[in-house]
């Protein structure tokens, strides 16, 4: 497949949320509607990548219930259940107008993307003007670096490097409350928006060994708060029951 034509850097859009959107705000669609509005296409193709969660049914269902009755064409790709995906990955990724990445483990996300060559395709999509959006691991991944807790204690990890700095509470980066998103035009921060009154963001710079913090005042998004609940995966509940049973059987072996 030939590469899509690149657009001017200023026309490349990334929307990075600390925590928000359909997986975390089932009753508040403001950030997701904002994401839809970032594409110039009237009925955009929205591709959801739930990779960082291990493609949980809960995330996929929450995506569907949020977007199925909006003006868009929602689709998701599971890299664990690729037999359900009939078209080549490159075709799906490069046809999307918006690519929305869910939260979870950043380490797993990047490793699995790399194994399937999706990291390269996403860079290509960004260069072609596809809107990239995501929360948590799905937001950190666009920056030079982030932190992952996937191996227990938080540790730094490299991202795709489309944006400078990191989305963490550490130096040289941004710290976001839940409900706040940063919109980048190219590598330049263009807007800071929020779905919740009172939520804030900080820019942290290391200057001469000191951490200098600047508070950013987000624009509060307006609209009607409604929307469907995401639904809790009952398998998790069942799993916990089995675990309790197992602990019981293990006796004092602990």
């Amino acid at each position, binding site marked *: 497949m030939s590469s899509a034509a690149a657009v001017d850097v200023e026309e490349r859009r990334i929307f990075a949320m600390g925590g928000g959107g359909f997986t975390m705000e089932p009753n508040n669609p403001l950030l997701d509607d904002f994401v839809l509005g970032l594409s110039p296409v009237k009925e955009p193709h929205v591709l959801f990548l739930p990779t960082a969660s291990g493609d949980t049914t809960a995330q996929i269902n929450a995506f569907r219930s949020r977007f199925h009755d909006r003006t868009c064409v929602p689709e998701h790709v599971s890299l664990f259940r690729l*037999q359900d995906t009939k078209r080549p990955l490159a075709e799906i990724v490069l046809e999307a107008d918006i690519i929305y990445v869910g939260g979870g483990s950043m380490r797993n996300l990047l490793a*699995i993307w790399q194994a399937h060559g999706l990291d390269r395709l996403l860079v290509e999509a960004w260069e072609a003007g596809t809107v990239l959006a995501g929360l948590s691991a799905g937001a950190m991944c666009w920056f030079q670096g982030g932190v992952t807790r996937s191996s227990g204690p938080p540790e730094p990890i490299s991202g795709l490097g489309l944006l400078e700095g990191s989305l963490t509470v550490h130096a040289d980066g941004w710290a976001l409350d839940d409900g706040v998103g940063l919109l980048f035009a190219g590598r330049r921060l263009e807007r800071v928006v929020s779905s919740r009154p009172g939520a804030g963001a900080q820019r942290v710079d290391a200057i001469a060994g000191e951490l200098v913090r600047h508070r950013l005042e987000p624009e509060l998004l307006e609209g009607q708060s409604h929307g469907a609940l995401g639904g809790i995966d009952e398998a998790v509940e069942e799993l916990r029951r*089995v675990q309790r049973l*197992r602990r019981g059987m293990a006796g004092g072996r602990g």
Partner: protein
Amino acid sequence: MRPRTPQIVALGGGGFSMEKEGSLLDEYVLSLTDASRPRVCFLPTASGDADHYVVRFYRRFSPSCDASHLSLFRRDQGTGGVEDDFATHLLAQDLIYVGGGNVVSMLGAWRAHGLDAILRKAWRKGVILCGPSAGSLCWFEEALSAFHGAPRSVKGLGLLPYSNCVHYDAEPARREEYHRFVGDGMRPGFAAEDGVALHFRHTRLAAAVSSRPDGRAFRVKPARDGVVETPLHVDYLGADLEVPVPSSQSADTAACARNDIASESIGQEPVAA
């Protein structure tokens, strides 16, 4: 502790995740451990750590084993998986059971967590490694994956210096494609049908066993014109059972069990490799 032989049991498909009577293959694997209550750790990575799959593992193994699982995705949800030191936990097992799903995603996640090196070390120490489908392909140098689109060659962990093809009977195209790949330079290897397990000691095939009377496995090598496919002797594990199961019924049951998995969202069809 006396030194233990490195062993791998590679299932073409079957075991607790696929067969209602999967206990025959699982019992065979457990019997290799020499432990009265074996320590068994489940790696559901290839399914994205699907909860249903983990639940079924505990249902099958916790009554007779010290069962645990290791999740690379859900570390914060208190689901009781191994949290801390992967290496120490895995090296202390009698058996590591790898679930089915997408082998490419699994190997990518394993490498990011250093599990590839840990599993190699565990194997050398004599921790038995086993699994169906992706849980078979991963141990070989090369594997034929037909999980998505055109079949492709995937580089596995390389503990076994062969190629591998699973679900050999599930779709006729699998066999043709495997022959084509081996004919075109993929290394020689082994193909197993659903319900058949290839048991390796060190890197040599020690036995082929089946939970079905008609289960088959083959050695496939390149030849002057294409390939040579040699059937392996396969021991039917149910031969001592009082009432033999007719093969057609057995196959139906397996298909049935596979559909169960499909409806239980561990990945619609984790049996596909």
